[in-house]
């Protein structure tokens, strides 16, 4: 019967055999099939099945097919439908329903048809009865199947039941039974109401009574049956097996990664034959040796298939397919594509065997059907070029001569999401760079950007020579001259040595490979052949410079250095490969079109859509967004190590170079670099250091400008929009959209797995942020450079050169032991201080030099996100996220007249920056600005010689910039409101983390104190908490608590500010106590001996007060923490969630087994270790997972808020830039942005965020009933606790969210 079939479709075969119900079902199935199926007219519903499998129901052909199929249904007797593949059809429709939004008319029709057909079916009634009959024997196993059955029935009968499954999952076991019962009941009623006349009253009541009886019995049994007990030994054994399986999977995954990189490289090097042989060799080895990691993987097969496809070798392809079957590897769309392409290629050959081709094609088509892989999948999902697509179509035509390539229009729109409903689909925008530059400039700039990126680096002249940091300017000219000469000489010599050694080493390596018969192994050799020798030498010379100019106190570990060098090699190779295959050329062409788009006045699509349309219109030639797999980290390290080893062993320096006393001395050649071990915790860490003479040589003689990678400086033409996870940002790089720690593959895999449309909002907001053009604020830059060159200023946070560091004490022989030791300790302290000063000085030097380099230019910062979705500009040194000075150096390139309110906003912003009037209302700040106008003008005109009002500000440099802007506006001849301003105005969230918590928990008091409620004056949460703590303290002091009395008058805002701020980010009591103790230490009149006790007391009180004020916050935080603890502890999985905008987040904190980090190279330096860290197979670090989940979740919310604001600002046509919770725009558009920001906050928090999180976690992590161990064991209790905790969403308070819309100081 239908139910039997449905059930059998749900249940795994084994379980059917086992359960008594299953056995009955199987028996019935067979008889039914024998009886009824023979006469069934199959052809009638094949169409229908095809439709349900069809990928794009929306396209016109499919539409017609669907209609005809629906019509065809009329002719089918219902019996046939039920007995044959009803389950498939229903499945297909269900699939469609879940994929296509329910508004799609065609799916609707099919759903209607089926509903109409099946609703009156007496079979269903009978099926239901049978279930009821059998429900005496309902066991744990059939439980899920029954649920599923009800679900499917319900779905067909009534959309009301759609939510059933989610609801069901959230319930406890007993609840599930109850739920099931009520659902069956409802179902019976619904069935009845659907065709009332066909359902006699007696029937329903009969069903109901039977149901009740059956379910009662089941419930009783449920309570009676005890789950199976396992012994500790068994559990240990199970755990061991699970661990071994995980280990195995991990080895498999990392091996496949290594082999894939190797094969791809061989293919590209023009040695496809080697690639095929290598692959087969490993297949053989792994088949023969169980200890070898598994090799068979569909990606590897696809690589090899593609080689054959290009040759058109049908026999070989067929053999490979057999091999895939033998190794139990399921082919996917690209595999089918390769075979069909092969047929297409073979067709044009003289040796073409039509019959063979036909069998192959029909087999492929059959395989595709079995795997529900449509032809459009095969054509569009395998990253094939237009030519390949044609070949694939040729292939299909062997079996289906009239075949045409199905048209598939790319989808530009978003997935349905209530947050995005306000975005108009057809809206046309003004180009983000309209008015900033013209077409000719754009052409020139994009050419320049391409050139820079192809070169790979930018040379920037430093504003001060590096040697000035250590030696005064009047340093010995003669010495410098000698050093310059010697450096050139040495570098030439080194280059020669490196070239020679590299050649020899390569020869030796090749011989070694031959001698050890490792031609078919994963070795380092091809990686060293992928570039020209000169290119390697060039990279090594750069590495020498990097090492020599590196800091004395801090260098990355050798491992990091190796990896970095490996990455340079890889980047160079990737670029070369893309450029050779014509990708870069095509990219340049498409980018030209895109850039034109950017400067149009109106009628432009958003960048992503614009790019997608351009790509769709230019399909011929190579694919620009083809994914190149990057080399796994072990390869990078091995390659880097090989090159670094050459440097270490062969670069020598004359140690007597600067010994000028004896001219005839022979040079004393000693290695220029050496290894050093430093302990890092319990581990030792190896670093590469430079011989002091070489360091001196570079310090004195280096003429090299600062060399930056092309990808760490801003772009000079608009960035590419993100259209996929691997395509966007800089023009030629294959950067990823998300910055993840090394080894974190899991989240990226998840990003690739979810439908691309789900990530479009994220891409679009990043594109919006990236598209904003910037310019450098030159007057401020000049001033900053002046101060920097003249020795810095601590007050203005321009670092002093390390020269300014006091000289270390001299240890003389007449000192006592104690003095000597003290001098020694001081020396170490001073050395550290000097190191710190040097790095700060370098940082400022880099920033100012880059700013100086790009003055008078227009800049763009491509953005990417971290794993929580927070957006960051890619260039790390110089960007708008930087400190005060860097922010002051940047202006919008686009200018807009101030307008009436803009001038006021400018003044208010200026006062905000000073930090003088934090508690005053906006009008007060404006008045203050007007009062201080004299000082402001003075600061603007005579920044250094005047009164220096700007220097007392919280953010002096930005204040100065604002002063200058105000002055410029006042001086504007057409009146301030017509002054064209480039100045960004900031609107800052007041304690943004707490704002999100307060909104999540709807805390009335908390919400008010973080300005979610409308108020006359800005509320200050820190003062509020301080007042509450003070109240507690007075109470305690009255009770006679000593420490409370001692703290009288000490509880100031400042003391507890940091603690309040960081509670959101999960500060612990320990950390909070340290923060408070630090503040107390700074108080002059506080008795320092009580510091410890006082800080402990204050910490406790602060936490208590915060808890009282933010009632919901604490509950939510605790719930988050507890969920994360249980998920990582009990399930052994990292915590995962989906942000309201659809970005999947996985916390990348793993235990990182040391076992994976074995040495990368074997003793001969030839073979590459294939063990990589693959985080999907690692146990999570429970402590980190637990502590970090609350702040990370809040960060993902604040990033969502930012993205929403960004998207809506884009639609409103105003400029928008963000520094996390600080939003920037032009003065004249502040009001628009403020409104959007508030609306989006309300919209975001009107979503059931916590409930969605709960539903997601329940569906992902909670254990099914049968997995719950008996109550006695620890595991059983833990699992039950997990199931319970996940559903316990904290209660909400009474705050009315709409108030946010009227709050002036929410963001201010």
């Amino acid at each position, binding site marked *: 019967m239908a139910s039997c079939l449905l059930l059998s479709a749900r249940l795994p075969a084994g379980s059917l055999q086992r359960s008594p119900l299953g056995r009955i079902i199987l028996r019935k199935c067979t008889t039914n099939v024998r009886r009824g199926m023979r006469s069934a007219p199959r052809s009638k519903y094949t169409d229908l099945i095809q439709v349900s499998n069809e990928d794009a129901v929306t396209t016109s052909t499919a539409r017609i097919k669907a209609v005809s199929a629906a019509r065809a249904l009329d002719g089918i007797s219902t019996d046939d439908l039920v007995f044959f593949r009803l389950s498939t059809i229903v499945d297909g429709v269900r699939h469609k329903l879940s994929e296509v939004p329910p508004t799609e008319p065609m799916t609707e029709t099919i759903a209607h048809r089926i509903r109409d057909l099946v609703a009156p079916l007496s079979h269903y009634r009978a099926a239901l009865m049978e279930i009821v009959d059998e429900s005496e024997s309902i066991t744990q196993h059939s439980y899920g199947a029954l649920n599923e059955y009800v679900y499917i029935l319900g779905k067909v009968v009534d959309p009301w039941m759609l939510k059933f499954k989610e609801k069901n999952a959230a319930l406890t076991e007993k609840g599930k039974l109850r739920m099931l019962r009520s659902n069956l009941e409802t179902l019976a009623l619904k069935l009845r109401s659907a065709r009332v006349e066909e359902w006699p009253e007696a029937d329903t009541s009969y069903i109901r009574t039977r149901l009740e009886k059956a379910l009662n019995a089941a419930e009783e049994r449920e309570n009676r049956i005890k789950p199976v007990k396992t012994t500790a030994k068994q559990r240990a054994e199970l755990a061991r097996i699970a661990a071994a399986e995980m280990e195995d999977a991990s080895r498999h995954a990392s091996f496949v990664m290594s082999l894939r990189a190797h094969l791809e490289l061989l293919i590209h090097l023009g040695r496809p034959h080697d690639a095929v042989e290598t692959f087969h060799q490993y297949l053989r080895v792994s088949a023969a040796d169980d200890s070898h990691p598994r090799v068979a993987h569909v990606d590897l097969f696809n690589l090899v298939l593609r080689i054959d496809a290009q040759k058109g070798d049908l026999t070989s392809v067929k053999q490979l397919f057999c091999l895939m079957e033998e190794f139990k590897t399921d082919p996917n769309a690209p595999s089918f594509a390769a075979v069909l392409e092969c047929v297409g290629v073979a067709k044009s050959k003289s040796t073409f065997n039509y019959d063979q081709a036909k069998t192959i094609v029909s087999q492929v088509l059959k395989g595709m059907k079995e795997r529900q892989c449509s032809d459009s999948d095969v054509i569009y999902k395998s990253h094939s070029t237009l030519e390949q697509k044609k070949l694939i179509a040729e292939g299909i035509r062997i079996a289906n001569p009239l075949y045409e390539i199905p048209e598939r229009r790319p989808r530009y729109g978003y997935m349905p999401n209530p947050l995005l409903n306000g975005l108009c689909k057809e809206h046309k925008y003004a180009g983000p760079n309209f008015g900033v530059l013209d077409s000719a400039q754009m052409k020139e700039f994009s050419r320049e950007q391409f050139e820079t990126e192809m070169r790979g680096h930018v040379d920037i002249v430093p504003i001060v020579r590096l040697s000035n940091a250590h030696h005064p300017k009047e340093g010995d000219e003669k010495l410098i001259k000698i050093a310059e000469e010697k450096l050139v000489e040495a570098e030439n010599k080194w280059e020669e040595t490196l070239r020679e050694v590299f050649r020899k080493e390569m020869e030796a390596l090749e011989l070694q490979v031959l001698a050890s018969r490792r031609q078919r192994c994963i070795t380092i050799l091809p990686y060293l052949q992928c570039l020209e020798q000169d290119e390697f030498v060039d990279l090594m010379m750069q590495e020498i410079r990097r090492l020599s100019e590196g800091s004395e106190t801090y260098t990355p570990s050798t491992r990091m250095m190796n*990896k970095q060098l490996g990455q340079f090699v890889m980047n160079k190779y990737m670029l070369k490969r893309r450029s050779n295959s014509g990708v870069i050329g095509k990219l340049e062409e498409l980018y030209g079109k895109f850039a034109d788009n950017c400067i149009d006045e109106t009628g432009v699509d958003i960048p992503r859509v614009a790019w997608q349309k351009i790509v769709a219109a230019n399909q011929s030639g190579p694919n620009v967004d083809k994914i190149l797999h990057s080399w796994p980290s072990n390869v990078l390290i091995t390659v880097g190590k090989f090159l670094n080893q050459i440097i270490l062993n062969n670069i020598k320096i004359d*140690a007597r170079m600067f010994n000028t006393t004896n001219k005839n001395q022979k040079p004393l050649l000693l290695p220029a670099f050496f290894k050093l071990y430093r302990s890092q915790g319990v581990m030792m860490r190896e670093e590469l250091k430079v011989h002091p003479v070489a360091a001196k040589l570079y310090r004195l003689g280096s003429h090299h400008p600062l060399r930056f990678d092309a990808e760490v400086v801003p772009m000079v033409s608009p960035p590419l929009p993100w259209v996929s996870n691997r395509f966007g940002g800089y023009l030629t790089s294959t950067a990823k959209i998300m910055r993840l720690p090394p080894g974190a593959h899991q989240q990226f895999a998840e990003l690739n797995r979810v439908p691309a449309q789900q990530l479009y909002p994220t891409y679009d907001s990043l594109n919006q942020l990236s598209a904003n053009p910037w310019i450098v604020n030159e007057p401020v830059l000049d001033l900053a450079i002046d101060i920097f060159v003249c020795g810095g200023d601590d007050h203005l946070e321009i670092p002093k050169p390390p020269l300014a560091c006091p000289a270390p004490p001299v240890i003389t022989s007449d000192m006592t032991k104690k003095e000597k*030791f003290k001098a020694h300790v001081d020396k170490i302290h001073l050395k550290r201080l000097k190191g710190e000063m040097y790095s700060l000085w370098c940082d400022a030097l880099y920033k100012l030099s880059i700013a100086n380099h790009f003055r008078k230019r227009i800049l763009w910062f491509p953005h990417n996100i971290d794993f929580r979705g927070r957006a960051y500009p890619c260039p790390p040194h110089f960007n708008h996220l930087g400190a005060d000075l860097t922010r002051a150096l940047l202006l919008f390139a686009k200018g807009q007249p101030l307008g009436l309110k803009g001038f006021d906003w400018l003044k208010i912003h200026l006062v905000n920056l000073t930090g003088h009037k934090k508690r005053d209302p906006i009008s007060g700040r404006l008045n203050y600005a007007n009062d201080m106008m004299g000082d402001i003008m003075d600061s603007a005109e005579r920044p250094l010689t005047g009164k220096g009002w700007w220097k007392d500000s919280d953010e002096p440099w930005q204040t100065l910039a604002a002063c200058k802007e105000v002055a410029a506006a006042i001086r504007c001849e057409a009146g301030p409101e017509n002054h064209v301003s480039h100045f960004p105005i900031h609107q800052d969230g007041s304690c943004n983390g707490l704002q999100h918590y307060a909104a999540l928990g709807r805390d009335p008091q908390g919400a008010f104190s973080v300005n979610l409620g409308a108020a006359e004056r800005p509320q200050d949460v820190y003062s509020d908490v301080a007042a509450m703590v003070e109240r507690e303290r007075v109470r305690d002091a009255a009770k006679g608590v000593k420490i409370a009395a001692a703290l009288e008058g000490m509880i100031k805002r400042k003391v507890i500010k940091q603690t309040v701020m960081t509670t959101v980010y999960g500060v612990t009591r320990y950390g909070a106590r340290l923060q408070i103790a630090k503040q107390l230490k700074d108080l002059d009149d506080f008795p320092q001996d009580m510091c410890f006790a006082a800080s402990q007391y204050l910490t406790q009180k602060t936490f208590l007060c915060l808890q009282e004020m933010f009632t919901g916050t604490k509950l939510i935080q605790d719930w988050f923490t507890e969920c994360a603890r249980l998920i990582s502890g009990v399930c052994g999985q990292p915590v995962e969630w989906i942000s309201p905008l659809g970005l999947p987040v996985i916390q990348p*904190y793993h235990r990182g087994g040391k076992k994976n980090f074995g040495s990368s190279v074997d003793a001969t330096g030839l073979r590459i270790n294939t063990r990589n860290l693959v985080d999907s197979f690692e146990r999570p670090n429970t402590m980190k997972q637990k*502590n970090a989940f609350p702040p990370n979740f809040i960060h993902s919310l604040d990033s969502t808020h930012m993205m929403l604001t960004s998207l809506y600002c884009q639609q409103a046509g105003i400029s928008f830039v963000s520094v996390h919770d600080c939003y920037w725009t032009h003065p004249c558009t502040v009001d628009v942005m403020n409104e959007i920001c508030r609306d989006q906050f309300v919209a975001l928090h009107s979503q059931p965020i916590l409930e969605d999180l709960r539903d997601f976690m329940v569906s992902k992590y909670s254990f099914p009933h049968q997995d719950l161990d008996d109550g006695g064991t620890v595991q059983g209790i833990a699992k039950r606790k997990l199931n319970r905790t996940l559903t316990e969403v904290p209660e909400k308070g009474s705050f009315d969210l709409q108030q946010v819309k009227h709050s002036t100081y929410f963001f201010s």
Partner: protein
Amino acid sequence: MRSFLRGELLRYYRRNFSWTSVNEARRRASHADVDVFCQTLPENERNILDQYSSLRRRISTPSSLYCVEQTVADRVANLVLNDGTANPVLEVRPGPGLITRAMLRQGIPAIRLFQDSALFGASSIKRDFPDAAIDSIMDDLLLLSKRDYADFQDPTEHRVARLLDGLQPAENGWRGDPALKIVGTLCSRKDMAFLRYMTSSCLSRRTLFQFGRVRSVFIVPSSIYEHVTARPTSGFILYKSSNILLQLLFDVKLLDTVPRSAFFPWPLAKNVARKRRSNFNEDHMYIVSIEAKRDIPGVPETQMRELAFFIFHHLTSRSRTVIPALEQWIPGCGVKLIEQGHGIFTRFGDLEPDKLKDLFLIFASHPEYESCAFKEALNLAQDAIDFPFSLADVSEKKPGVVPDLDADHDESDEHHISVQPRHRLADEA
């Protein structure tokens, strides 16, 4: 019938079996051991165990051990010779004071006690020996390294000076008799830190060694004994730079062995299968004397730190071959080494401490030694040489520190989200 019986048995077993009962039984049994042992003790000693009943509980890894057998205490006291220095004997973790009393009975006039637990006091000893100069400090001398590091970080307090207050320098300086004598029981792996600290402070002649040489008599379990006497044959886990340096700078002598059972608390009975194979008897405690050498033949005092760094650096990887490693400092020095009889496959870990010292002397005698990068390396690594304790011992996990959310992976360099100034800015990407 048999199967029926088995089934019955199984059912019975299942009904009555639980791990808690097994553990309980095991604990009771081990307590029974202690009780039986106590019965054999003389009354005096039994009283001590009754007084400090917490000592009777077995602990899996005790953090300190106290002697409770009179005869053993006497044997230890006999080994601490009274050679008439001005300074009191420093006794670490005296506990109930059996060894203290034994030493006082032997006629040692002055003792300074460093108690690690508030459980014990010295008042009864002072009462019993009114003539002796007994000085009790409530701090653990074995944590001297921690106190020293704290002084280094926060120079406002003098934590070390408080412990070593009033001690006199030796009359004949370094070459004379030992200025200080330390007696005590070391117990856990953590106490090894004290030995490492002794090595580093001996090198720089600081804290304990500012007064002159130190002779210590330590009663150590086999796990520590195998460390302090490690040789290349002991395996590379034990034969590491800290142990080698200890043996180079100190004379390590085995004086006597005493039964482990005389020291409380007892360890938990170990699972036999999990026991690590040890060359030494775990039922013994080893009494070792560790005395600073007057000099190391051939190594001038000025080169001591260089020797220490030489060993620290090269023995980081014991399996590294000698000649290639040294050639990386001074190209061509291998010839001389081969002349001296070093094979090209000799590993650092194969050389006895004395041989390593000889190797250093050959290395340092090269004319290029002064200008090669070795000195620079020593200079850069001086933190590791002068304050090895600062890194290894103090950087324990701080309780409850929030993980740094932005960058907490040790290879996070390419993951920089923070806007903090970085050091090697130009090179990161």
